[in-house]
């Protein structure tokens, strides 16, 4: 293994700052790693020249004594982020030839802070999916048990696979119902979904506007803190962006959690969770106890409605958000003899089955006569789910849950959409409530697949989330490397 790949984000940052390594060296190592792991299919677009150019600038900065927070660190970007002059497809055929003339706020923040761009990472089409199988260019392979072709999870499957395979030092993701946390869990890495409003949505291809939130996928909790420090910002261009300062998350690493109260929701220990996950969930509870936290059983009674609510609200918003892909101004167009036929042909050919399914569901639940029974009811229940959390956070500081009910599954095995939707059962409630959540790896199951644990914090308490996750990370001491990682 190239020695350079052993550094995590924070380690590499220190090595670059101390001139132990150069950004160009590091970036070259990652470009090589991308090539070596190309069979995983994590990258849709590799921008080698741009990466090296950016790395060079970073090295010049370092030599001049300037170093920005992410100076010289090569990272990958989920294809949901619009990147100026670099093909951005949201893993959809309908955007096959789309080159944005603008840069998303989140990625611009990263470049401003010195990060080096390696390329664009695959995901489920328009971030709709939990296995990365809905991507137009085909699925991504999980680097764990590579020969078995396991799913990296989704929708940020390419991001998770790349970080696990060490073909990116870190990556951006977007999470609507679990799209950062679930793939992070499947790939044995850390994934953080911030509070809704922490990161600007400007320039991110919209799936479900009231739920979409960008966040980092990284090897460690510290790396997640380092990335989120740069990604988060108040942005006037996003009316739902929070006008709040993000404290320096790095300063919350190593904080004690003594006396902190950890809630264990009784609704999250249901049937259908694999035994290995139940065991590690219990282990995690014990680790937190050992670190001085108080464990408190809590109840989130409306959790059972979270999935149905999510699968009404997210498709409803998606059906409207995706109306702009009409073949008129950008993307692929299928010529036809009338406007309506052109729409039908363009959208019929441009969207994949899962996207079409959700557009259909969304259109249905918003239709006159069904709106009250579905969309409006779902909004009311969403409110109740949010209130559940508000009540629980009066009693506890953090909530601990498994990230997923099972570990990764073989690609092509979960054909039934409803079974697939169950993957997000533990991640969706926090999304509906807009709360920050982090998934970190805590062990391997019998097969040797990573298991993730999820911590949920109150709104805008990313600092506390980082402190607590950091404690758990130390206890779990997860230091396995995927067999499919670059060597």
């Amino acid at each position, binding site marked *: 293994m190239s020695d350079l790949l052993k550094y995590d984000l924070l380690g590499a940052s220190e090595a670059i700052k101390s001139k132990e390594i150069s950004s160009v060296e590091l970036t070259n190592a990652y470009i090589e790693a991308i090539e070596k792991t190309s069979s995983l299919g994590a990258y849709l677009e590799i921008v080698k020249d741009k990466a090296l150019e950016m790395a060079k600038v970073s090295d010049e900065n370092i030599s001049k004594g300037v170093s920005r927070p992410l100076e010289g660190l090569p990272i990958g970007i989920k294809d949901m982020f*619009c990147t100026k002059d670099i093909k951005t497809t949201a893993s959809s055929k309908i955007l096959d030839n789309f080159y944005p003339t603008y840069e998303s706020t989140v990625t611009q923040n990263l470049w401003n802070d010195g990060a080096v761009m390696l390329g664009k990472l695959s995901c489920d089409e328009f971030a709709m999916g939990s296995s990365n199988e809905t991507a137009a260019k085909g699925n991504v392979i999980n680097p764990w048990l590579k020969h078995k072709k396991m799913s990296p999870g989704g929708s940020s499957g390419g991001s998770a696979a790349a970080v696990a395979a060490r073909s990116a030092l870190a990556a951006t993701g977007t999470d609507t119902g679990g799209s950062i946390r679930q793939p992070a869990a499947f790939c044995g890495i850390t994934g953080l979904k911030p509070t809704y409003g922490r990161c600007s949505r400007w320039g991110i291809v919209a799936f479900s506007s009231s739920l979409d939130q960008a966040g980092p996928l990284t090897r460690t909790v510290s790396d997640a803190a380092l990335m989120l420090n740069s990604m988060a910002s108040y942005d006037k261009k996003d*009316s*739902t962006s929070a006008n709040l300062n993000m404290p320096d998350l790095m300063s919350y690493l190593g904080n004690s959690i003594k006396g902190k109260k950890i809630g264990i929701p009784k609704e999250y220990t249901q049937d259908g969770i694999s035994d290995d996950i139940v065991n590690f969930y219990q282990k995690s509870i014990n680790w937190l106890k050992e670190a001085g936290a108080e464990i408190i059983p809590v109840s989130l009674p409306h959790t059972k409605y979270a999935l149905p609510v999510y699968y009404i609200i997210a498709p409803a918003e998606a059906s409207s958000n995706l109306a702009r892909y009409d073949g008129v101004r950008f993307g692929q167009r299928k010529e036809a003899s009338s*406007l309506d036929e052109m*729409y039908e042909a363009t959208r019929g050919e441009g969207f994949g089955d899962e996207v079409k399914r959700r557009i259909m569901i969304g259109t249905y639940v918003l239709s006159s006569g069904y*709106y009250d029974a579905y969309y409006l009811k779902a909004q009311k229940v969403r409110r109740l789910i949010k209130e559940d959390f508000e009540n629980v956070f009066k009693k506890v500081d953090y909530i601990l849950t498994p990230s997923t009910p099972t570990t990764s599954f073989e690609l092509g095995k979960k054909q039934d959409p409803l079974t697939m939707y169950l993957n997000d059962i533990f991640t969706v409630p926090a999304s509906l409530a807009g709360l920050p959540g982090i998934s970190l790896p805590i062990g391997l199951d019998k097969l040797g697949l990573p298991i993730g644990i999820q911590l949920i914090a109150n709104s805008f308490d990313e600092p506390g989330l980082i402190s607590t996750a950091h404690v758990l990370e130390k206890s779990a001491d997860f230091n396995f490397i995927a067999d499919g990682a670059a060597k």
Partner: protein
Amino acid sequence: MSETSKLKPGHIQGETGVWEMVIGLEIHAQVSSKSKLFSGASATFGAQANSNVSLVDAAMPGMLPVINEYCVEQAVKTGLALNAQINNISVFDRKNYFYADLPQGYQISQFTKPIVGEGEINIDVDDNNQTTIGIERLHLEQDAGKSLHDQHPSKSYIDLNRTGVALMEIVSKPDIRSPQEAGAYVKKIRSILRYVGSCDGNMEEGSLRADCNVSVRKAGEEFGTRCEIKNLNSIRFINQAIQAEAERQVEILESGGEINQETRLFDTSTGETRSMRSKEDAHDYRYFPDPDLLPLEFTDSFVQDIKDKLPELPDFVKKRLVNEYGITPYDASILVEEKDYVNFFEKAATGGDGKLTANWMISELFGALKKENLLLSNSPISPETLGELIGLISKGIISGKIAKDVFSEMMISSKKPSDIVKEKGLEQVSDDKEILKLVDKVIADNQDKVKDYLSGKDKLFGFFVGQVMKISQGKANPGLVNKMLKENLK
């Protein structure tokens, strides 16, 4: 014909009796704002196609709307001017439909929670009658782009300059009962918009357009089924379209048919309305709150600040003009239609006779401008010169008749009226001796007529006045002429 001419406006004589129209208007008023409702792009009219289009307007992936605060203020201002409820919390919804000139695939509008709720305005029906029309609501929404179907044999071109421009949709209650009232209502709304400055009210450029909901019923009956006539862009067309549509409905109903609730278009060349789409084909717009925008919230003090800065409104100015200048309410209502008119009038009336000024402005100046196809702002006669002319009349320096000649000269040369009077020697003769000379001459020259007059033909008095005026070349003071003729014709 004689029977119909006796009908009240808004009534239709059918075979089975008299029908009454029930009309409601939706006015789309473009907010006078430099930039669009949710993007920073310019909202100027008449720019080169697709030059005022931001990434947000073109609905590029990942682009997000941000509310233009100025437009919000304009809506609140207008709501206050319509005596309407201001809703401190309102919500933007998405109205979803596919069309080539609607890049987002939805229009951002306000559906269940508009920024302005119920209000009412007074309109002048005729010289003596006013009526009140209820306002249902006012909401903010985005305009769509423009499809150009005549640029290419098989393709349509799209201009997105108008996409996202802020509109205020002002919805009336179904309180309007005739095309004339509809016209008066639109005029009143337009003048209110211009007074507060929230919309330029320019119907030719499309900054003010109306959709008319029309139904008919027999007096006292329930409302009938209505049809909506879309996109009318002049008061004349509104008048014609309503009349034509109501007549069409009466004809159908009287021949035993039913009205289908539908959207119709007015064909300006035939003067008829035709079906655009039926209720069955109506879009299901799938309205839902726009998740990209937070509810629009403002405080009472935000509203109060706007209220404090509200200018004088037409109704207030009208009352003031009647009280201060003693002009008739009808003249006042014409003058307040435009802020320009009032400003002009008040300048012209300084130091002169208000009533006379109003008369001259409305009948002479407006008539002359119309003939020359000029706007008041381009009038060759300024408020100052008109005021001077009025002064010359009321001081008796020139007669009303001479004043008309001076006025005509002023329209051409823009000269001061006093200069014209001096140059042409048009001063009124008010010297008793001078006038007596003329009176004596006329009496001497018309002895036979004098006899007739004295034997009871009173009507001949006008003839003598005319003769005196004639030989004085119109300069004799008509009051004095009258007086002296009366004294001397004995």
